[in-house]
């Protein structure tokens, strides 16, 4: 257990150092002789920030390219959260880059007018890149208030990001100051090839791989709580191997080249015939259409992803699952797997929902109680008459009543999944109750 954890910590630190090195590499290379003649401090500072900002933007493509090795030590949501925060930092650096040049009037502000015949092309490229980046940031931070549909947003996000980096690269080539040496130009050629390679990988190679390994719908079944279970079987291939609790990106009604995929947790245990099940709540445009799928329809599954799994904690003495709403799906996958393995470790499931009718997969959970050493606590906001169980929300008081008293590190592994406010509140309560943050696991998908 300790070895597993230490290994993950070292892997995590390693990738942070790789990130920092690649971010700073352009500045370090610029600094190597022979250097062009020195200029004013403010101009050199501005240039350094611009180069670092550009390297960060190019590296964003690596963060979101879904390389399983990079995500393994953290989990997908941590990488996306980092992607989001580091984007804001990159944006600030890139914004400061021209501002610093305008303050001492190294360049006139009029250079921002890309339509003026006096504006050089290098400045036009820079302004276009900055505009694309600004649009990207605004759409990412305020997608919901701006009422931009998720699939459309993803397409715009990809296009604006590509434009921002491509125009920034053209700006660097146009300025042609710190890339005066052939081997320095080689570095930038390397960054460009890396960037184009990543685009090729995510936009062509991966969709092509998915196209070659389709799944067929076996069954679409209505569940409680406005959810639908979608059972898929591999079509002409062995299917994917996943750990219970993980998730995959699903493309339905479209070709994988259309970039119209959505992430969902598996709700089944890994099956020998490669079939998989997802249980999806009707929440948005795509999820409302799941019920329209018919047996035999083609669906593409890109996965598995995520670090939210009991399989990462083989030595735990006890597992606790805390779910809200459709956050139950990865928990059910883990419970089915434990039952399949005839695992008799003590398990506790705390499952919150609006009412009994909204508790998705409750029948399966009741059946699993007979096969596992499992206690289940339902927490209902609107309990039926005569209900003697927990009511309201999954508060600290509820957790204190049911969670084991044992607080020793690495003994109990706790999994939390549900709506964001519920997860934040439960995680806060668990921390106050003395559980170690390393033993509390969660994954957040609702990032944009």
């Amino acid at each position, binding site marked *: 257990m300790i070895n597993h954890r230490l290994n993950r910590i070292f892997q995590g630190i390693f990738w*942070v150092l790789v990130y920092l090195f690649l971010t700073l590499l352009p500045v*370090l290379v610029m*600094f190597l002789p022979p250097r062009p003649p020195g200029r004013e401090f403010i101009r050199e*500072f501005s*240039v*350094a920030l611009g180069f670092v900002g550009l390297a960060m933007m190019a590296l964003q493509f690596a963060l979101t390219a879904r390389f399983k090795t990079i995500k393994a030590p953290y989990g997908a949501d941590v990488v996306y*959260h980092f992607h989001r*925060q580091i984007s804001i930092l990159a944006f600030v*650096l890139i914004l400061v880059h021209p501002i610093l040049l305008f303050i001492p009037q190294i360049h006139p502000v009029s250079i921002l007018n890309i339509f003026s015949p006096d504006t050089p092309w290098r400045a036009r490229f820079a302004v276009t890149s900055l505009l694309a980046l600004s649009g990207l940031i605004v759409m990412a931070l305020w997608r919901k208030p701006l009422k931009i549909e998720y699939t459309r947003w993803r397409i715009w996000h990809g296009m604006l990001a590509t434009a921002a980096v491509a125009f920034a690269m053209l700006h660097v080539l146009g300025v042609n100051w710190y890339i005066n040496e052939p081997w320095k130009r080689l570095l930038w050629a390397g960054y460009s090839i890396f960037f184009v390679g990543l685009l090729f990988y995510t936009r062509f190679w991966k969709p092509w791989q998915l196209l070659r390994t389709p799944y067929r719908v076996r069954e679409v079944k209505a569940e409680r709580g406005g959810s639908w279970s979608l059972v898929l079987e591999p079509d002409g291939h062995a299917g994917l191997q996943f750990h219970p609790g993980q998730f995959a990106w699903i493309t339905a009604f479209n070709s994988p080249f259309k970039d119209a995929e959505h992430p969902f947790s598996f709700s089944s245990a890994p099956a020998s015939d490669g079939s998989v099940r997802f249980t999806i709540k009707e929440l948005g445009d795509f999820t409302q259409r799941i019920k329209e799928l018919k047996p035999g329809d083609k669906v593409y599954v890109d996965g598995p992803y995520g670090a939210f799994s009991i399989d990462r904690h083989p030595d735990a003495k006890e597992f606790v699952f805390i779910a809200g709403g459709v956050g139950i799906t990865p928990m059910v996958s883990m419970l089915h797997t434990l039952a399949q393995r005839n695992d008799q470790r003590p398990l506790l499931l705390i499952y919150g929902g609006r009412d009994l009718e909204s508790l998705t997969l409750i029948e399966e959970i009741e059946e699993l109680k007979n096969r596992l050493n499992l206690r289940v606590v339902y927490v209902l906001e609107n309990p039926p008459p005569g209900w003697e169980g927990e009511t309201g929300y999954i508060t600290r008081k509820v957790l204190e009543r049911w969670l084991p008293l044992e607080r020793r590190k690495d003994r109990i592994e706790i999994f939390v999944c549900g709506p964001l406010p519920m997860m934040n509140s439960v995680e806060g309560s668990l*921390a106050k109750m003395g559980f170690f943050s390393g033993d509390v696991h969660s994954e957040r998908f609702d990032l944009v």
Partner: protein
Amino acid sequence: MRSRLITALTISIGMVILLVALWFAAVQSGLWG
């Protein structure tokens, strides 16, 4: 908890970048070294 860690990591990376950029500018402009 984890989001706070990520924020701390982002701020730390920002500080390192800022220091390296300042160092580069100081040396290259002849202010230092």
